[in-house]
């Protein structure tokens, strides 16, 4: 496994709140790494920094060993980074197929394309294929606005979308929070499959059992800093909780 993404010393301040105070993070190709931490530990902020949505105040990001500046979500996308944000980032008035292509709409060939005419049929077909191959039940809802869907269905749309496009790194910020048992199972299987095709998958979750089950490695964030790293094999829930809450600090230090 090679280190695909490496962040070090990331600082992000919001006014007088310091969300990240020198956070480190790494993700390897082909692995699922869980990023865990208490509420407010800075997980979502770190994901936003590493997806180009938020510019860090300090710190460096390396991709395959080269220092990079993501600059914008487009910059991150160019590196093959895709993200399921905690708020899902869907356009509620559009359908799932339309959402799957937000910002990367397919255009018809030829003169019509010159005018920016959308190839809606092709987008719909590709989205339907992707939804189908991921084992979701979204195919019957292709034309429903996302706003009318259940929380779990919305989460499925956001997950499918990012899996469709992720080629290097996939961030999932609490992707199973609104999902039922079967869908959660399905997403965890999907996550494994995506990692098996060589993508670095970063899973944020508060469900420790789930984390131990699906992740290869676990990184723990507390108060905006990485405080521990574990290999999933041989680690137990007590150790994770200890690292998250700080009870383990003395022994880790």
């Amino acid at each position, binding site marked *: 496994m090679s280190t695909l993404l490496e962040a070090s010393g990331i600082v992000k301040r919001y006014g007088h709140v310091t969300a990240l105070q020198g956070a480190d993070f790494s993700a390897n190709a082909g692995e699922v790494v869980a990023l865990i931490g208490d509420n407010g530990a800075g997980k979502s902020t770190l994901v936003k920094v590493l997806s180009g949505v938020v510019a860090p105040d300090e710190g460096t990001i390396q991709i395959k060993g080269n220092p990079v500046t993501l600059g914008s979500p*487009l910059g991150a996308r160019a590196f093959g980074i895709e993200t399921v944000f905690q708020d899902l980032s869907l*356009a509620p008035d*559009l359908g799932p197929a*339309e959402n799957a292509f937000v910002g990367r709409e397919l255009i018809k060939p030829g003169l019509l394309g010159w005018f920016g005419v959308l190839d809606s049929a092709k987008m719909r077909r590709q989205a339907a294929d992707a939804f189908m191959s991921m084992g979701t039940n979204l195919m019957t809802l292709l034309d429903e606005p996302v*706003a009318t869907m259940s929380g779990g269905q919305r989460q499925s749309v956001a997950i499918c979308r990012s899996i469709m496009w992720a080629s290097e790194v996939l961030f999932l910020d609490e992707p199973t929070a609104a999902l039922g048992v079967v869908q959660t199972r399905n997403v965890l299987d999907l996550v494994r499959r995506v990692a098996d095709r060589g993508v670095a998958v970063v899973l944020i979750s508060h469900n420790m059992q789930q984390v131990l089950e699906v992740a290869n490695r676990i990184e723990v964030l507390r108060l905006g800093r990485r405080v521990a790293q574990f290999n999933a094999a041989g680690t137990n829930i007590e150790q994770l909780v200890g690292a998250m809450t700080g009870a383990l600090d003395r022994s880790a230090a």
Partner: protein
Amino acid sequence: MSAVLLFLVIVFSAIRPDAFPSLANAQNVVMDAAALLVMAVGMTYVMIAAGIDLSVGSVLVFAGVCSAKVMGAMGADNWGTVLAGLVVALAAGLAWGLFNGLCITKLRVPALITTLGTLGAALGAANLVTHGNDVRTVPLTLIEFGVGGPLGLSWIVWVAIAVAIVGGLVLARTRFGRHTYIIGSNAEAGRRAGINVDNHLLKLYGLSGLLAGLAGWLSLARFATTTIAGHSTDVLAVITGVVLGGTSLFGGFGTVGGTVIGILIPTALSNGFIIVNVEPFWQEVATGFILIAAVYVDQIKRRARERA
């Protein structure tokens, strides 16, 4: 909404069967609607993107004044002058639109306030240029353009129809249109997907100004003068038409097709009131309340959906 329009037509026709349902009156109604429709197409884009442009009526007047002044100064009564007048009107409208867009996207002044400000400023500027008197230097070539046209409809109406068709297709079928919906639905989601939201909004306000400029030129063709005082409630009719046409005040959905039907409602109302001898001011009273009712219905629909 088609049902409401049909209802109005039936009621007015029942009261004045001799006057309302005639070809000449139908021509009047579409003529009244034409300039409003041109502005309403721009407003549809802006409102789908969850914005608002209150300045359109004043920008229409300002663009008309500039256009009439330039055409007057050029003197020659030919198509060269008329087209120069068109360019001036479009440029004046575009300039106000871009000014709105820059204030909204760069200075982060809310659209409601920015365009309320330019509503006052553009009208004031028009009055400064003309010292408050209407400009009548409209070439006959332009006035004749407004009188005749194919199928008994004025060219003014045909221009409005063309704007609606092109505007409707671009909105429904192109990436530009799709980005407009995305921004109105969840601007942050658009931003995270790499859409340059500010740039797009700037274009939309520019478009709204441009179309108000075009409406100013059409209005000169129609009235042969600048009608400075005649457009204070245009924005009311335009927004009412757009909302009645199904565009949400909160952005995210709407169609130009809906706007076409919607804009005919305040126009038919105003025409009908005149024909049945109700004081025309009642139209403004009615349109105002219709706008409030339409937005109320929009709110209810939205809340019902969010609860689902």
